[in-house]
């Protein structure tokens, strides 16, 4: 029956969202928590099933591809699913008190977030190109309102820009799907790749789909919307958007290139995409250095951190680097998910307590935000890739892959990105250590944090550190169903 867990991970949060919508948040808080916990349990069960029994398959409606839609969980899906579930559980626990503290019960937030969770799970599990298109649209339509929730000028503009770019991106993606279907007669992720080979039209399809997904994932030239969108959303929404939604787009990019278009993976293509990633790494980090607000720093750091994921493509074609780079990139996605969600939630605590997130406000807050600051500090350590965090393991593997294949350039990008990340991280952390300036008067006494809000960020961040102990099982899980080249 393990196959049923795959559709359940889509349906459980979806139905929870619908129930919450019908009976209202005030009466449904228990339902929300129950739904989140059930989803977490289902996701962990899927991971367990994959780890024990290899890739899991469920044919929806009982129709096998190419006729029907297949849900497919291999190691990669299982890991993303589990990461999403853990981050999602943290966000869910956090959002309740956060929204209450902001003076409303989140009537608008909860259904959107729960549907988004369902969609993320669907995205990670679906093996059907067109079903993925629908999922992508659902992601866009849940992400844009979350980004616009603040309702002020920058966030509305950002949401609008995001929406337009994302719609454009979906069209490009759909066009690619159309071409692939025209050429192969199937919409199945792997079958299409096997049937298509390296034809000119496949190359165009790959380019279109990649570009479309880049617009959704804020990869470098299409990144403008991300910072204002992610930095103005409510903290739990920012966490979900940065840690999960943007990553879902890149997950699909990697999934497509490794499963559908491996035949097209040539050196120039790798350099082009990897180059974009490298630019994103440097650009995002440098911008993060210049921001006056904490959430802006964290949002720019997302642009940079997502860039690392693209470094896989130039490396994976080289046999000496492939396995390490693949492992490193996936670990990076996981570690970044935990750390980034934790960082945004920590920033939310700062807003909750101080009413703003200007970096200067970090002076002298240590006594009452110590747990939060610890979480923030640990999150930054993982983001810059220093031990003993999961981010470090990822960076180590990426670097090992790059150096083993003699690709010093990509290794240099990884190191440089880490250094600039350290610069912006310590800029923030230094302010937390700085003394209170003379004549500084507390404008309002800081509020006391509810326990769920105090500990949720730390718990999420610590997961990134737990990866140091779980590296081997995680990578063994990842190897379940991985393509030949990266096993």
């Amino acid at each position, binding site marked *: 029956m393990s196959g049923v867990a795959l559709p359940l991970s889509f349906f459980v949060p979806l139905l929870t969202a619908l129930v919450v919508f019908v009976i209202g948040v005030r009466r449904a808080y228990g339902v929300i928590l129950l739904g989140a916990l059930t989803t977490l349990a289902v996701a962990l069960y899927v991971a367990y099933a994959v780890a024990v029994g290899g890739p899991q398959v469920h044919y929806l409606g009982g129709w096998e591809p190419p006729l029907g839609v297949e849900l497919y969980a291999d190691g990669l899906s299982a890991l993303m699913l589990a990461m999403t579930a853990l981050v999602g559980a943290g966000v869910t626990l956090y959002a309740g008190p956060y929204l209450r503290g902001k003076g409303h019960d989140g009537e608008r937030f909860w259904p959107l977030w729960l549907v988004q969770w369902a969609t993320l799970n669907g995205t990670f599990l679906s093996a059907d190109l067109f079903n993925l298109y629908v999922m992508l649209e659902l992601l866009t339509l849940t992400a844009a309102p979350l980004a616009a929730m603040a309702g002020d000028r920058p966030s509305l503009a950002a949401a609008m820009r995001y929406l337009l770019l994302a719609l454009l991106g979906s069209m490009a993606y759909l066009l690619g799907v159309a071409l692939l279907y025209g050429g192969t007669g199937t919409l199945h992720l792997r079958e299409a790749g096997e049937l298509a080979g390296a034809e000119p039209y496949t190359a165009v399809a790959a380019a279109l789909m990649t570009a479309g997904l880049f617009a959704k994932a804020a990869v470098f030239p299409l990144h403008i919307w991300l910072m204002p969108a992610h930095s103005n959303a409510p903290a739990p929404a920012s966490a979900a958007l940065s840690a999960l939604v943007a990553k879902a787009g890149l997950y699909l990019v990697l999934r497509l290139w490794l499963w559908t278009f491996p035949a097209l993976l040539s050196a120039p293509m790798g350099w082009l995409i990897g180059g974009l990633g490298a630019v994103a790494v440097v650009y995002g980090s440098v911008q993060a250095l210049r921001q006056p607000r904490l959430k802006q720093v964290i949002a720019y750091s997302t642009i940079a951190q997502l860039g690392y994921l693209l470094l896989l493509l130039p490396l994976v074609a080289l046999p000496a680097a492939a396995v390490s780079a693949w*492992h490193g990139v996936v670990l990076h996605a996981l570690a970044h998910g935990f750390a980034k969600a934790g960082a945004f939630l920590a920033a939310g605590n700062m807003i909750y307590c101080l009413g703003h997130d200007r970096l200067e406000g970090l002076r002298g807050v*240590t*006594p009452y935000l*110590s747990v939060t600051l*610890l979480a923030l500090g640990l999150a930054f*350590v993982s983001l810059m890739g*220093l*031990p*003993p965090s999961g981010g*470090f*393991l990822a960076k*180590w*593997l990426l*670097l*090992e*892959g790059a*150096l*083993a294949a003699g690709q010093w350039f990509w*290794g240099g990008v990884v*190191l440089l990105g*880490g*250094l600039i990340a*350290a610069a912006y991280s*310590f800029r923030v952390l*230094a302010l937390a*250590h*700085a*003394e209170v300036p003379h004549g500084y008067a507390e404008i309002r006494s800081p509020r006391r944090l509810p326990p769920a809000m105090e500990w949720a960020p730390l718990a999420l961040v610590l997961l990134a550190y737990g990866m*140091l*102990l779980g*590296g*081997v099982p995680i*990578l063994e899980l990842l190897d379940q169903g991985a393509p030949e080249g990266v096993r």
Partner: protein
Amino acid sequence: MSLDAVHELLPLWALLASVITAVVIFALRDHRQRQRTFWNLFGASVKLVLVLLMLHGVMLGHSYEVVYPVLPGVTLLLTVDALALLFAFLSAVLWLVTTVYAVAYLEHSGQRARFFGFFSLCVAATFGIALAGNLFTFFLFYELLTLATWPLVVHRGHPAALAAGRTYLAYTLGGGVALLTGVVAVQAALGDVAFSAGGIPAFSDWAEAEPFQATAVLALMLAGVGVKAALVPLHRWLPVAMVAPAPVSALLHAVAVVKAGAFGVVRILQDVAGPEVAQTLGVAPVLVALAAVTILYGSVRALAQTDLKRRLAFSTVSQVSYITLGVALGGPLALLGGLVHLVHQGLMKITLFFCAGYYAETRGIHRIDELDGIGPRMPWISAAFTVGALGMIGLPPVAGFISKWYLGLGALEQGQTWLLGVLVLSTLLNAAYFLPVLRRIWMLPEPAGRPEVPPERASRWLLYPALFTAAAALLAGLLAAWDVSPLGWAQRIVEQEYPAP
């Protein structure tokens, strides 16, 4: 878990002793001072006991090894050999002492939970560096050390401290990148290789096959650890970091950071590359030259300082390079000199910093010209300072003499006679910047109008650690011939590195 298994995992327990202490202290609220002090001392004592147990075990010929696979082909490896224990024991002892001192020193400042938490973490990292059995583990703890010490450096939070923190990070993280590159390159070329006395065999094969790459990798790794070892021109962070509270300076200079760097040089030259390979690749001679330059440069700069702590800082720059010099020279005698200096310099320099902190805390004395006539008024602490200073100069019977003696012998053994000149010159310079201080303390009359401050009760706990370490420095020199003296232990290490033919 059987008792044997528990025993086998001793290195892990000892490491956890500091980590758990750190976590507990983080969790305590700031005003829980008694509890915090208890946990601090408890953690430090437990750890010392565990290290002593391991010491006993190693003397009986037992070897400890804790392996945990972190990634496929990458393991976290803690091994306890004689060299590891040398450093581990030093850090365990000095941690206990410094904790006592720091508790007294920071009696009234804010943010003590944070401070002592990172303090413990810092020791955990140092301990990890000592016990690291391969490059991955070494790097992991090496960077953790950077992270754990930064909050201590910026602890006071004023602009100077923050600026110092920036400089510190710029150097150490830059060094970390170099080290990481080197370490990963070794991993990529050779896989997961453990340290082995006299050099990793695979590394020497690699060095033969790819001399250029091996040289570059070795140079990168040494540059990485060279930052923390304060080798010229990578030393600038060390004097700047003097803004930190005195116990931190003591820790940075004597136990943790610079020692980690120096220890890294030892590990990389002796147990990764091996002295011969380092010599053939041309890395060791360059390092010798750099160390010689650093020794003289540090001393010259120390001469010009009027601030006591800054003078001590430049003295550290100079003194730590003795260790590098000894290791880079190669040959058993020079290595012996370097290794034993690792301990001796720690004991002496921590004494000096304890004293400087004591002066600053009780009398507000920061500059050297304010020390006039303080000796007769505060005889005990000044005596401790004197022991430390004389040891630094290298006067027998204080421990510093032993180090310099073996270094000199080593230089002769390797036929590098010119280094004797460096050592003599350095000793003269040491004398030139320490003797005037001693003269001021003991000989010059006390200026009129110095306020009469009775030493407070707390300050007694500032005094005892200094006396203890001064006594230890003296004893290390006097009892050098004893089997478990630093020298005796270093000899044991050298026998492993250069097995008798």
